[in-house]
């Protein structure tokens, strides 16, 4: 096996191992219901994590996505309430807005040579603030088209539901895999992650690529916002606080290096499912107090990262010898 695939393999192995452990304790975890739930409940996270993966692969970071998801929900809800537009039109409008927002952040990052962490932090405040300015209330979405989207699922044997948004997430991962690993744009992303100065000397159009990367992340955040609004049939300015951190954790668990230049979009899917698995396990257990929940989530996160590191060290040492 190509050594660059080791982190991905380690991630998948650990995920499967964790699942086996869960199933041994709660046989129900093997049901299609739980599988369907994992996909549906983490659909918005998976989509936004795909965008985050591309950003992190380029050596950047995007802290604004959680706020952008919230903004998207509010934007859709308010537009549907106040204007007679069809949801599809609103979706298109929204994706334009969020992509432009991402592009603007990318431009700032490039043109002013400011660190992405800070620019997107300001973006995070701005997007959340913009959501507040649209409404401070939670706004329900009441539209026949939404009921349609909501009821679109395939009932798997065992009563598990493969929902539309779950499928959208899987498709997004696929698209993300192609964009990151199979296009010239993707190659430029990896090049930037390998080192901006070198990438520049190799002929990467740094400015254009940076803008495109953050625009892509904005697009994904917008799409995630749409999915989230379908998931909850509403828009709420306080939604998805801290989702950016969950997404980053998922990307890292998925075997992508935060320093950029190495990683896999597919790994991110596994990372997202891992986070979902941790969540599900804790709910199934149902005995943890509020505070132990927090501690255990952190410790499980650490355990995954340590296992991954250990496994990698063992395999590379084996390969080196």
């Amino acid at each position, binding site marked *: 096996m190509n050594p660059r695939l080791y982190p991905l393999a380690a991630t998948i192995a650990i995920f499967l191992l964790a699942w086996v452990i869960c199933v041994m304790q*709660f046989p*129900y975890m093997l*049901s299609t*219901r*739980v599988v369907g*739930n994992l996909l*549906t*409940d*983490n659909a*918005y996270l998976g989509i936004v994590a795909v965008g985050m993966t591309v950003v992190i692969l380029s050596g950047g970071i995007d802290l604004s996505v959680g706020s952008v998801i919230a903004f998207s929900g509010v934007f859709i809800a308010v537009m549907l309430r106040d204007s007679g537009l069809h949801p599809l039109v609103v979706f298109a409008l929204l994706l334009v807005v969020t992509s432009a927002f991402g592009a603007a952040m990318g431009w700032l990052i490039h043109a002013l040579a400011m660190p992405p962490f800070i620019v997107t932090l300001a973006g995070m405040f701005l997007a959340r603030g913009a959501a*507040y300015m649209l409404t*401070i*209330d*939670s*706004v*329900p979405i009441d539209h026949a088209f939404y009921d349609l989207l*909501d009821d679109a699922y395939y009932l798997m044997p065992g009563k598990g539901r493969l929902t539309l948004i779950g499928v959208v997430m899987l498709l997004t991962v696929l698209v993300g895999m192609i964009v990151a690993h199979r296009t010239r744009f993707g190659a430029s992303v990896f090049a930037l992650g390998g080192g901006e100065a070198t990438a520049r000397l190799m002929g990467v159009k740094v400015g254009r690529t940076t803008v495109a990367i953050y625009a892509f992340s904005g697009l994904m955040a917008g799409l995630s916002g749409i999915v*989230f609004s379908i*998931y*909850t*049939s*509403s*828009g*709420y*300015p*306080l*939604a*998805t*606080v*801290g989702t950016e951190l969950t997404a980053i954790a998922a990307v890292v668990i998925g075997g992508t290096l935060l320093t950029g230049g190495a990683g896999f979009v597919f790994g991110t899917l596994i990372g997202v499912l891992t986070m*979902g698995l941790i*969540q*599900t396990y*804790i*709910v*199934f257990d*149902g*005995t*943890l*107090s*509020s*505070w132990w*929940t*927090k501690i255990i989530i952190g410790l499980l996160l650490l355990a995954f990262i340590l296992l991954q590191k250990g496994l990698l060290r063992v395999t590379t040492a084996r390969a080196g010898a």
Partner: protein
Amino acid sequence: QTVGFSQIGSESGWRAAETTLTKQQAEERGIDLKFSDAQQKQENQIAAIRSFIAQGVDAILLAPVVATGWDSVLEEAKEAEIPVVLLDRQVDSDKSLYLTAVGSDLVHEGEVAGQWLVDAVDGAECRVVELQGTTGSSPAIDRKTGFEKGIAGADNIEIVRSQTGDFTRAQGKEVMESFLQAEGGGADICALYAHNDDMAVGAIQAIKEAGLKPGEDILIVSIDAVPDIFQAMAAGEANATVELTPNMAGPAFDALKAYMADGTEPAKFIQTESKLYTQDDDPAGEYERRKDLGY
């Protein structure tokens, strides 16, 4: 009997008390309670309810973090024939999707507080500052609306400043300090209305540090009735609070029991009392009664 309980989080002492009481009530009735803390996130709550359904619990208690967005997951529960009882906050889904809701009327709470102030100032001019809860949260919105309703008839009362204190003590204190600065060192403020007791307790400290006497120079009315506000009332530093009982689970379990025994449909809304406490209601005693409830 297994009951899943999806709690919002542990963001305040009041909520910690609600969690404690729910667990207590479940234990007393021999119910196996599956507890899930959503850390203030709706998405976690939805995921938790889905997991409860997958596990096949007998009933679900839900303290919804926000009013909207529950339709599809409640429908799923209904299809799986698992009754859902809402605790302390309402949802705007169809009433057929849940068994009943136990809670207080948030608007009414604000109204009670407003009416108390109208009575207390008795026609005198009064400039009020307001400490809001977390921007966008339903208690913040409703308690603001309710208070405004309560003082609607009294032209002598006017809200001059209103800022969010995020339901926390520290923010309550910080924002109150800036209110005092902005309003002539506090001389122009006649009363404070805080959306919860924690912010009021923080604000009381700010007022004391500014050299004024809370409860006399500035009247203080807030909501929740947590132990610390009774302590302040006993010391004459706070004037009134509106109770929001943390024991929502008791009525909920009662309703569930009846429903499961013979299918008795409870009322769709079991309203808990929004009782007003003032300095005359034995605050010291109330403090003693409450201080071990896990607030």
